[in-house]
């Protein structure tokens, strides 16, 4: 959990960052309002900053040398060819890239790979295989909790992590009593899963799949 002092710190960082970008930014014309302002470095080709990073993915140690700008998502998809984690937006808005790091779900597009030195990363490929499905994967198949399949790995990783969060007693926005043990109610489930967009609209079926697995686990 983030403490108040962490928040202060990160807020200051954000403010500093904003000031810096204003200082360097080229004042955009209205017509260019949507084009990111970029410092112009005439003729100077910025050098690429490379770094090695080691982490474990689905229980296997991996060491790769990466452009430090590489997100964890692109490290998985483009460098390790673990393409189960999807890029739906690259901006932390859709949840298709959800992976489980150190037991907690994160949007892997919003974090740089080099920030994960030593971390234990679990992706959809680490949950089960077509021949040996994880119970959550099997429940999604049974309840048709997907259509096009593109958000599905993220939904499943999120769902697995949600059940662990509830078990760990972590409250959500809709928890009525922050001191009582978290319950897997419909409202809790839907609230906690709302970071994972499914444009095909399989929500009703996804909820049934998760509820079934939760019941089995209970």
């Amino acid at each position, binding site marked *: 959990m983030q403490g108040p002092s962490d928040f202060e710190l990160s807020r200051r960082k954000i403010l500093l960052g904003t000031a810096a970008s204003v200082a360097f930014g080229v004042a955009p014309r*209205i*017509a*260019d*309002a*949507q*084009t990111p302002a*970029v410092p*112009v470095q*005439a*003729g100077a*080709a*910025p050098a*690429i900053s490379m770094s090695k990073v080691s982490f474990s993915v689905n229980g296997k140690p991996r060491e790769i040398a990466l*452009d430090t*700008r*590489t997100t964890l998502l*692109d490290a998985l998809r483009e460098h390790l060819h673990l*393409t*189960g*984690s*999807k*890029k*739906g*937006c*690259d*901006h932390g808005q*859709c949840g298709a890239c959800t992976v489980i790091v150190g037991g907690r779900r994160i949007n892997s597009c919003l974090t740089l790979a080099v920030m994960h030195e030593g971390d234990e990363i679990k*992706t*959809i*490929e680490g949950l089960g*295989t077509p*021949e040996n*499905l994880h119970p959550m*994967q099997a429940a999604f*198949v049974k309840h*048709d909790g*997907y*259509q*096009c*399949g*593109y*958000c599905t790995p993220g939904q*499943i990783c999120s769902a697995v992590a949600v059940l662990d969060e509830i078990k760990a007693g972590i409250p959500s926005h809709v928890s009525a009593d922050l001191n009582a043990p978290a319950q897997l109610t*419909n*409202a809790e489930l*839907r*609230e906690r*899963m*709302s*970071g994972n*967009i*499914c*444009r*095909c*609209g399989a*929500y*009703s*079926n*996804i*909820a049934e799949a998760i509820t079934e697995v939760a019941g089995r686990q209970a």
Partner: protein
Amino acid sequence: MKFESPATTNPIDQLKIVGQSVSRIDGPLKTTGTAPYAYERHDVVANQAYGYVVGSAIAKGRIKSIDLGAAKAAPGVLAIVTADNAGKLDKGRLNTAKLLGGPEIQHYHQAIAVVVAETFEQARAAAQLIRVDYAAEQGAFDLASLLDKAKPNPITAGPADTAVGDFAANFAAAPVRLDARYSTPDEAHAMMEPHATIAAWEGDKLTLWTSNQMIAWNKAEMAKILGMRAENVRLDSPFVGGGFGGKLFPRADALLAALGARAAKRPVKVALQRPLMFNNTTHRPATIQRIRIGATRDGKITAIGHESWSGDLPGGKADGAVAQTRLLYAGAHRMTATRLATLDLPEGNAMRAPGEATGMMALEIAVDEMAEKLGMDPIEFRILNDTQVDPEKPERPFSQRQLTECFRTGAERFGWSKRNPQPGRVRDGRWLVGIGAAAAFRNNLLTKSAARVRLDNGGIVTVETDMTDIGTGSYTIIAQTAAEMMGVPLEKVKVRLGDSAFPVSAGSGGQWGGNNSTAGVYAACVKLREAVAQKLGFNSAEAEFADGEVRSGNRRVPLAQAAADGGLSAEDEIEYGDLAKKYQQSTFGAHFVEVGVDAATAEIRVRRMLAVCAAGRILNPKTARSQVIGAMTMGVGAALMEELVVDKRTGFFVNHDLAAYEVPVHADIPHQEMFFLDETDPMSSPMKAKGVAELGICGVAAAVANAVYNATGVRVRDYPITLDKLLEQMPDVG
């Protein structure tokens, strides 16, 4: 096989496998992340470089100059393609705007360059270094201000103007009249998988591993745009991460990957960046609609008129919002009119149920309003004005029309009788509660579709067709069809889709994919059965295919034996005669929605949803139900939140990402009920099935709107229905 007379009994009617709720055969791949989508095909070609697309920062005007110097010098950059060095490019037949703009710019975020580099990060960084000097021109961006200048424009469903009887006189003479104006906003497909393509050249042959709904259309389009022979273009699209009409036509990813690969002399992969997609690709255009209904005091419609205005780029198409009004309700005097204004916004084009989706949003509020004026129950008003024939051509019946049964069944299951017709009277704690209903209607479209079916000596049946599965369940219903026809279990069928090397199918669009593609597989299987029977010495008319055997009389032979000395293969297509001319083929449904509206804040929550549909034979109730509840979800989005907000000064959609373009999330959608009426339609195809995927979205938003009205007494005719539009008129909560 030509389908010219109504279907009689055929092997599909056994319904051993077809019609069963089997789980998707591609489910284990999709749920484990092993289904390969376009951008992920590391295995198909080596040495893939990365493309990053640059979009125009103006909506209309010209590029005076582009400075590529810094970008070219950036690390890892292999090539930059702009209109200056792309070579001669034609415009596709199916797109209105060019996929690569410059020097002329047709819309905001029209692609103007692709930067190809060794890595994604390098391509992205270099793209930021491109400097463009524009000469912007004033464009037209406000539909509402251009209604007088809009011109008649035909739509897919018919001419710009239709008229039967004397609408004007009979509307004027009607004792009860409604004349109301509605608006629907621009909407985005926002499918989860961004448009993506890997392109590779081998001499003058181009392969595109892409994400596309209509393989044959796009093979032809890409050939036309690039000035190539079609046989030199191959598309492969086995998994498509959603389309909803947004992947019907080629997009900039495919063209720029091809051009980038040619320039860089190596394979290139391009995905449209999410924030680019909303202005770069197509969208469902906004409409302004006027609906007039005249009726007798006892509720018989005597005159019904529907006019719609929408906008598009020069040379574009109008939204077909009036289409269903020609067919849905009776009434002797009728008119529709479609007008198109020229706008310089991004290209408007097909999105899930183009026409009916927007038209039903307005019409089904109008019908609710009219029922209230008449003092009638809105469902009884609809049933009273039901018609079993095409209202414009009474000699032409509907092949099947169970709209009334949908409403009756739904009303009972949903508890419609408990609805208080007086709005704003039902409270549940802080919530004002209301229920609303609306009809669902979408035409069934017939289009030819081919497939190839092979039998090997292990008894495995392999189906190949360029049909796509965009989440619709094509893999599964095609496998079910082949299994039923050849008398083998589902596990013995392999389905290969989405490759332009396969026979040309109906493709995925207009809810025509399911019925037509399986009918094509049926045709090919009929041919394969004949070949098998001949090979094994059976009379093909008498041979029964069941349990992996071919049987006739006392004789039974394993199916695989027909392929003992090499595989057997058959290819055929389904083509259609004039049954669709003689019989109007449509799909029907009834939507029921309960909402709660916060009495103080006017926050709207959907509490219950039910759809009852009649859409011919349901080939797989599990996947068909998913199509309908998914469409209901998109309908809730259309009702309550989805709107591309137009910046009318500079001409672009402001909320161009998934944070600002709001679509329904888990918390917005309750448990959804869905029920199919028993129906087979022998006029549609040997499968006796019809479309269902788009039926589900038609009318949902109006059912939500009618429920909001029932809850609050506030009638909102301007979608989306957001709380700011309710607040001022909310009932006094005391």
